[in-house]
């Protein structure tokens, strides 16, 4: 299992590929993954950039707790979580969650659980830069 916060842009597919090299070929039959990417449009406004603030110390721990809960519940083989912090540009990946398992059910379920729990619980806050100023993003359901 690996949980990483990154202050620089990253390539989610290259990270997935590199991480999977560490797993034993033939063990896993399924990998479900999710990549969240910064859009240039939110709540009807053009967004030029975003700053992602976090709580150093707690952010990593909370991510680790979520992965641990998912692992206890679904017993998958491995998981990788990478989350950006700092200055982010439209089109940049923000988060990668990947889960490897023998079968597809636990991979899908655990991947989605981690993404939803991450959105709900991990201390991260988005501040958007709009043409007319900045604003803190408010939590939404989608």
């Amino acid at each position, binding site marked *: 299992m690996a949980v990483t916060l990154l202050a620089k842009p990253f390539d989610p597919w290259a990270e997935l590929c590199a991480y999977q090299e560490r797993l034993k070929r033939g063990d896993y039959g399924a990998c479900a993954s999710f990549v969240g990417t910064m859009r240039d449009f939110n709540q009807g406004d053009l967004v030029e950039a975003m700053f992602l603030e976090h709580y150093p110390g707690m952010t990593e721990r909370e991510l680790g707790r979520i992965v641990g809960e998912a692992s206890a519940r679904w017993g998958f083989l491995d998981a990788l979580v990478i989350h950006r912090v700092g200055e982010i540009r439209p089109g940049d990946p923000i988060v990668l969650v990947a889960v490897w398992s023998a079968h597809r059910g636990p991979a899908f379920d655990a991947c989605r659980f981690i993404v939803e729990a991450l959105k*709900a619980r991990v201390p991260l*806050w988005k501040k958007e830069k709009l043409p007319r100023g900045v604003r*803190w993003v408010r939590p939404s359901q989608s």
Partner: protein
Amino acid sequence: MNIRVRLFASLRERLQLDQVELSAEGLTTVADVWQALTGEPWSRQVLAAVNWEYALPETEVKAGDEVAFFPPVTGG
């Protein structure tokens, strides 16, 4: 010993305070720390953590703890 208090995001900006040390004397719960810091009663809009774990307003605090207050999270 003191309690270290940290603030984040819109709450940090509103209170114009990043982190501060408060004397632990007379502070028993998370809600006490909040009141000592802001002069306001506990707000349901605020999330709290003690030592990097989510806490409730009634969660006990002691000298040496790190207590954090922040708005609802928006990562992912």
